[in-house]
């Protein structure tokens, strides 16, 4: 229903845009991926849908491909997704090796048993924890939980209809859906459930604060989405840790309700801005705002610190760029220069680079 609604909306919204057909092609791939992921009976089929959602997502972020920023952001989203997918694939293969061979009905009971299904096979606590943590990395990557939340505001570079359906409604909830699907694994490990709760609450708190300092409506809505996703994840963890199965229903209903609401908000956002501008023009001033609770109760120093943290989006991207990506690329650039020097010494080329090498300095933003 949501994909169809957004399709109808986009048919007018993107009219005469270059890449109009591309949008609907990628939208169809996304729908295929979502259907495959949500109706899968085995972890491998779920992985297929998961990957299709990731690819269509990254390509739609780079939809306005004549500009550099959306393309780089698309690449960033793809990078995060792929590393989360790597964790998923290892978990899928590990599950395949464990009793049950990755079939959900053999692992966690028949689909009709949900949410009362339990692990059908004997797993050791270590196996449950290891597989669960790998899947949690995959969930964190797909649902933009911390520390992988940096890609979510970047993904807003895509057209508004795709932002609404991907990051407001469906794609961002796919991680939470996976957690619900494998909830018997969480039931079997109290430690894992607690980790899920902590991760969910930390993400919700971080996103709630960050959304308040954003200067554009789509990013603010993205973080608002993330707040709800964090709460949903925490609900799932709480349901599993407490053994109260109805809490899982709460999480499921929360997913559906939030998806519908956020899609509407994102689709309405450009229009709402226009309405605000009309109002402000009419009264000849900015609309009056209320000071928040933080201004009243928190000391100035703490507020400044929190503001810095939130405006830099938790420094997660900076940390990844500075301490992971840059050294990684530097090592391979050094290897590349060594290889070129060595082959040049044999061919007596002398300039330390290959003949056909374009003489342009490399771009920094590679991953």
């Amino acid at each position: 229903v949501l994909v169809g609604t957004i399709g109808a909306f986009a048919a007018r919204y993107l009219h005469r845009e270059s890449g109009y057909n591309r949008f609907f092609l990628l939208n169809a791939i996304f729908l295929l991926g979502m259907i495959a992921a949500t109706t899968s009976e085995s972890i491998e089929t779920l992985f297929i849908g998961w990957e299709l959602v990731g690819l269509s997502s990254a390509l739609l972020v780079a939809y306005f491909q004549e500009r550099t920023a959306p393309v780089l952001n698309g690449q960033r989203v793809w990078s995060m997704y792929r590393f989360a997918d790597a964790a998923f694939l290892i978990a899928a293969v590990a599950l395949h090796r464990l009793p049950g061979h990755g079939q959900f009905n053999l692992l966690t009971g028949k689909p009709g048993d949900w949410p009362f299904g339990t692990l059908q096979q004997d797993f050791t606590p270590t196996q449950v924890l290891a597989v669960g943590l790998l899947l949690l990395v995959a969930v964190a990557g797909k649902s933009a939980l911390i520390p992988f939340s940096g890609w979510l505001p970047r993904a807003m570079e895509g057209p508004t209809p795709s932002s609404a359906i991907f990051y407001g409604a469906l794609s961002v909830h796919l991680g939470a859906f996976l957690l619900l699907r494998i909830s018997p694994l969480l039931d079997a490990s109290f430690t894992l459930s607690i980790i899920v709760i902590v991760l969910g609450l930390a993400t919700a708190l971080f996103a709630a604060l960050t959304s308040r300092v954003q200067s554009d409506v789509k990013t603010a809505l993205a973080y608002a989405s993330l707040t709800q996703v964090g709460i949903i994840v925490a609900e799932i963890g709480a349901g599993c840790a407490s053994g109260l199965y109805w809490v899982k229903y709460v999480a499921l209903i929360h997913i559906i309700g939030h998806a519908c609401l956020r899609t509407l908000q994102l689709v309405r956002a450009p229009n709402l801005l226009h309405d605000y501008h009309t109002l402000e023009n009419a009264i000849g001033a900015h609309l009056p705002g209320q000071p928040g609770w933080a201004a009243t109760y928190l000391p100035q120093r703490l507020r400044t610190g929190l503001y810095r943290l939130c405006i830099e989006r938790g420094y997660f991207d900076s940390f990844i760029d500075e301490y992971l990506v840059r050294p990684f690329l530097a090592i391979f650039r050094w290897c590349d220069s060594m290889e070129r020097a060595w082959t040049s010494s044999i061919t007596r080329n002398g300039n330390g680079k290959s003949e056909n090498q374009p003489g342009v300095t490399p771009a920094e933003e590679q991953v």
Partner: protein
Amino acid sequence: MEFGFPWIALAVLVPLCGAIWVRTLDDPYVARRHALVICILALLFTLGGAIAFVVHPSAGADAPWNVFQRSLGKPAFAIDVVNMPLLPLTALLYVLTALSSLHTRGKRFSYTRMLVSEAIVLALLSCEHHWMLVGLLVAQTIVPWIDIYAAKRPTGVYVLHMSLFVVCLVAGQALVSYQPVDSPMFSGGIVLLTAAIMIRCGVAPLHCWLTDLVEHASLRGSLLFVAPMAGAYAALRLLLPIAPPWALQAMMILSTLTMFYAGGMSLVQRDARRFFCYIFLSNSSLVLIGLGAAAAAEHAAASLAITGALCVWISVGLSLTGFGLTLRVVEARMGKLSLTEFSGLCEQFPNMAALFLVTGLASIGFPGTVGFVGVELLVDGAIRVHPFFGAAIVIGTALNSLAMLHAYFRVFTGKRRTTIPELGAKTYEQLAVMLFVVLIIGGGIYPQIGVLSRYEAANQIVEQRHGGKAEHPAEHAQLVSPAPVSQSSTSAADAVD
């Protein structure tokens, strides 16, 4: 086994004779057409051989056409379950490469050399006789050298590596053929053979010949040299039946490191050709990792990993040749492609952009493409050997996927260059790459037949290794010179066990 008809002998002879015929043609346009017809004929013969094998696997063992049988003790060219899909696949690569060649580039590309290389590689992939295989592997290295030399580019790096390869291969094969299996010299032979195979497969740090070749020779010539993965075939025929576990484990570890290293290197490349080279290297290392898993004590793990490797062999051959040809189609119009800037070619080559993406995704084993099942089987098998290998493969594949989308964005997105006239790809070029895509998607949607066939081949390889059915290379040597092998009664399989 050729079903009473010399399918494979003809598949080898037709391009060989065709090369002589094409050499006499002065007009490059005519030469291209004739070369294409000859390649199609060779493809039909390999397909005929494959179908004959599937229909009646045991027929033709004593066919009157096997002219070498009397002297060598077995047919020179034969189809078995291992090489059955490789021969038509290789012939198809040649057809599609010839088909995608621009008329205007006919003068720069030697169709004679292409046909000679096709004859050699088809003979190589259908050859089970060890010394003949060694001879063909050596002969195969000459064609790219001529290619580089004819282009007046430096040949030093290529010659250095290939000389080392030839020396190691010949010396290694001589030692394992003429020395008793329990002697140190036999172990030395294994080391040399392993080294030769690793050089030929481009295992780091002995891979620089590959970047050099791709940069200096024609892209089509380089593709046709590397895509059939003759080095992996040599590993399969020469090394796997006799190699002790330590040799295969060493091969597996070094291949894993190469896959990771090449994946990382592909991320920092500034030139599309070198990027392609590292992506190919990273993916082809997967095949060696899977073959190295034959050392695993557990039959199921070895069988699974080898099945994955054989599937990846086909998927990488298909997808990266398609990818390379897409790259060449764009390069033929735009010159060398830089990855340091956004070229914005999507508007001019919309179909090529889509094909680039599909072939690239297939090479990383994206779901829905021919590579997916192979990579998953390989990861599964490798994890059973050791979790490190499985994790390394997954991370290496993730690096490749980052590099692939990075290259796609650099080549096809960005501001359109309005000064460049419309240079869309020709119909026959698009047709060639489109055929690759059909095979890639078709294999992804319906992989069962291919996987079952590869599983059967993998089981045969593992049984041959573990079940004592391995044929000691000395048995071949005995036909030529019986004296040296009589010193040992221990079989190679015993040594392995």
